[in-house]
């Protein structure tokens, strides 16, 4: 395990120290060591909170900032934050207009958010949630409620954050964030495993010369282990289930290609060239494309594709200004 760490059991706390020192304009400490907040949130807006396991950087901390999230609850590597942490995040975000907690569909997160929400109620903090379920590989459309949340969460945060920033009500922020993530269909492909520091050995394994289509962000098994083929064939294998998930034809879309950690960004661009061709052939117009490491899995090799169907309501929110480590646009 070739890692720049101290005690493998303390990587999360040690990293938080670095974030706080590096970006004081984006991060402030709170009463909970596992919660950071944006120090300049307007107090009269709906608070945007998210949280989840660590190891997905720039998620989740990278999405704290202006026009984005106000507070983030930070879990251990690949493990939900505690209910205490979510509660403190609700308290640390502006909450006079209520709090929108926008997170991904994982059992631990569901339980901890549920408990935190109950505790917040006792403090008269109104919390509503949107649970991202954009991974088409994790369950068929009929069982959408079982799907994992993956890189579509980035879109959910951006849309929810922009709606809150312009002064939308809690119900409106929730409606738009829900609409945003419902408009997203995502899929991942994994080319290698990753190693949780405290564990010291790879989480699972992918044989050299193979890839796993539909892999989850923690290495959850996908729908198929297949021989590693060309970027062109991988693009097809990723586009097929995504395009089958929603009726994208004739619409405008936003495309997000995220690396899983160790795959060079050059390869994401090679992949995208083929995806773009495929979208064109399917009469789908691309409004914007973002390619980079937006939602990773430690040093896993691979990539995710997220396609988001846009309309006149979502587009301006997606393009609205934001300032955070992962997304800054003017």
């Amino acid at each position, binding site marked *: 395990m070739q890692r720049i760490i101290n005690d493998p059991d303390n990587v999360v706390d040690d990293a938080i120290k670095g974030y706080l020192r590096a970006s004081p304009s984006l991060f402030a400490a709170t009463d909970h060591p596992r919660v950071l907040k944006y120090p300049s949130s307007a107090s009269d807006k709906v608070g945007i909170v998210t949280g989840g396991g660590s190891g997905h950087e720039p998620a989740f901390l990278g999405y704290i900032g202006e026009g984005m999230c106000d507070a983030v609850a930070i879990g251990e590597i690949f493990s939900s934050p505690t209910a205490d942490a979510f509660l403190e995040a609700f308290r640390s975000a502006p909450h006079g207009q209520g709090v929108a907690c926008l997170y991904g569909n994982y059992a631990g997160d569901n339980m901890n958010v549920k408990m935190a929400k109950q505790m917040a109620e006792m403090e008269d903090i109104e919390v509503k949630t949107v649970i991202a379920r954009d991974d088409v590989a994790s369950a068929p459309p009929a069982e959408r409620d079982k799907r994992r949340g993956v890189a579509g969460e980035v879109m959910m945060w951006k849309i929810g954050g922009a709606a809150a920033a312009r002064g939308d009500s809690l119900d409106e922020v929730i409606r738009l964030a829900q609409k945003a993530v419902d408009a997203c269909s995502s899929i991942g492909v994994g080319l290698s495993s990753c190693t949780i520091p405290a564990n010291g050995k790879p989480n*699972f394994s992918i044989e050299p010369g193979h890839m796993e289509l539909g892999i989850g962000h923690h290495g959850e098994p996908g729908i198929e282990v297949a021989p590693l083929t060309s970027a062109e064939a991988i693009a097809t294998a990723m586009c097929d289930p995504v395009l089958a998930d929603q009726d994208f034809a004739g619409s405008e879309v936003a495309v997000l290609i995220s690396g899983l950690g160790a795959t060079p960004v050059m390869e994401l661009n090679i992949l995208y060239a083929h995806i773009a061709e495929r979208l064109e052939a399917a009469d789908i117009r691309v409004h914007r494309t973002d390619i980079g490491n937006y939602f990773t899995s430690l040093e896993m090799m691979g990539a995710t594709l997220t396609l988001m169907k846009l309309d006149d309501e979502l587009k301006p929110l997606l393009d609205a200004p934001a300032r955070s480590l992962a997304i800054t646009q003017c």
Partner: protein
Amino acid sequence: MQVLDATQGRDILEELVEVIVDNRQYLSDVDGAIGDGDHGINMAKGFRLCGESIAGQSLSLSKALGTLATTLMGSIGGSMGPLYGSLFMGMAKSVKDKNVLDAKDFGEMLADGQQSLEQISDAKVGDKCLLDTLVPAIESYRQAIEVSDDFPNALQALRNGAQQGRDSTLDLEAKIGRAARLGERSCGHLDAGAVSCCLLLTRLADSTERRLEKAAA
């Protein structure tokens, strides 16, 4: 009639901490086969912290279990924080005003724990999770004390039920948690939560048994 002195809870808790910390790697390995390989890390972290915070203190069983519950909920997150947190919180509440526990009180404590856990999760027996250990173990205990109020006998039933429950997960297809994504491929592996739950119930039974004393009843 045999009873457990419930005013001295720290020692029992320390044994629970010990069994989890000792099995840190084993639990992670079990989780690694069909999950993400961190169950031992998560559990050991919470239990170790609890061990540190109760060290040297004189605590009732209720207080000790309550500390464990709060530590788990507040420190380990994941699924295990809220699940085991609720379980032990339910148990702690159940024995709050008790100085001694007889076999029936002990059974109620387990049942209250289970009920508390079920409030937070809608997992059920057959889903391949810790409930596959917990529910049959408690049921086996309940049946034992229905037949006789022999405390050691009931504890043995608890152990048997837990072990059978744990082993039942071997052939189950996971319906919840990360392993659920594996579908049929999750068969042939024990569930990590079921294993940790079995370790805990077994050690709780052992520990209780060693401490049983004749009550002047």
